[in-house]
């Protein structure tokens, strides 16, 4: 990253907006801060310039922050989204739209710097991806949130799962089935997107249908036909495609 971050802060509450603007402007990692008091105004800013991240209020008139975040996901190269809210319970929905972070107002400087750190890592990851693909995707540096919201089969709501507890994700059409310490859940995200989001958290695509948390792997067992099987700590055997075996072996031995 060649210069500081460009941030667009969006909140219909003018005092809360003034507070986050002042905090952002006094952060060493931020070069430029623009403010908007509505989602519509934010879209005008976004159409006229490039921003690394939006710090976005969840509850706003007309178009809510969550709706704007969903809209941004359709952009070819969307800015990262960090939610700002007085609603602590909105976290689950925020992670569902792949928000980079979720801050409850008023924000401490330490917490803000942590969020900006995530944004910087995200920008670096995006720049690295533009410079050249890494091949098997295992070396991506984009940092996603360290938890993910999954459909909870009990009660129909959402459940937060920490990435570190996930053993692997298995492709299931446009969905992914994740296997974690607490059980198995369905995630409405394709495996290819999870590969991008979780690459920096130690996950590797070892097979067309499998994304694996390498911290849960205990053995790579070669097969006679050139493929391999990855043994997980719960003894689950994950197939490894032939073209991924060498890169995976290097990574496990690194």
């Amino acid at each position: 990253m060649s210069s500081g971050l460009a941030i667009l802060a969006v909140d219909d509450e003018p005092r809360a907006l003034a507070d986050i603007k002042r905090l952002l402007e006094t952060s060493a990692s931020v070069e430029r801060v623009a403010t908007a008091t509505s989602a519509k105004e934010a879209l005008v800013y976004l159409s006229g310039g490039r921003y690394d991240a939006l710090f976005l209020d969840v509850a706003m008139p007309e178009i809510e922050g969550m709706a704007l975040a969903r809209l941004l996901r359709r952009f070819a190269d969307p800015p990262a989204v960090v939610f700002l809210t007085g609603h602590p319970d909105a976290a689950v929905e925020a992670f569902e739209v792949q928000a980079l972070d979720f801050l409850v107002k008023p924000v401490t400087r330490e917490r803000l710097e942590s969020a900006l750190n995530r944004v910087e890592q995200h920008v670096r990851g995006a720049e690295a991806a533009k410079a050249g693909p890494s091949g098997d995707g295992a070396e991506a540096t984009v940092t996603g949130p360290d938890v993910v919201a999954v459909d909870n089969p009990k009660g129909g709501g959402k459940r937060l799962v920490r990435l570190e507890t996930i053993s692997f994700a298995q492709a299931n059409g446009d969905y992914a089935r994740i296997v974690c310490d607490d059980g198995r859940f369905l995630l409405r995200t394709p495996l290819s997107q999870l590969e991008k989001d979780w690459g920096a958290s130690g996950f590797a695509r070892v097979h067309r249908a499998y994304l694996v948390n390498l911290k849960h792997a205990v053995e790579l067992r070669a097969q006679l036909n050139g493929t391999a099987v990855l043994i997980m700590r719960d003894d689950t055997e994950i197939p490894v495609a032939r073209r991924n075996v060498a890169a995976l072996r290097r990574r496990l031995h690194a």
Partner: protein
Amino acid sequence: MQDPIQGRVDGGSPVSVHFVNNVLAAAASYIEEDPDTARDVLAELGAFLSHRLRASRVVSPAEELEHVRVYMRLEQARFPGRIEAELPAADDLPAARIAPGYVQAPMAAALERWLAQQPGRVRVALRARGDALDLQLDRPDEPGEPGERLRIPLGLATAGSV
């Protein structure tokens, strides 16, 4: 989105976490440019929470009216220039015993809804009408738009409160 509600105390009305967090954010915004206002907002928030979080009790309509005044000043601190408030004199209120937040909670629900619907000013009027309070909300800049009216019966509150 539904407002996350916490802090229901002994049958009184709940306190909105969203409201408290946003008032604190507003107070933080005033600290450098207007420290006196920042201090006042925090003191008013303290008074607001004390009224609601003290152990099981009932209050007079006059005490609840003062709570409503504090609430309106906090909302005006969050949204400078957006809220006009008209409140009755304490002497006009009937004698009754009500739960803390009995009047403020429905006012807050209505006002938050009106503020969230669209930008612009909102006028809130609370008037004494016999044994009840009449709450009216409208938009002073859009005189043709229908307002909202809500009757808050204080007599019923006495029978049904804490």
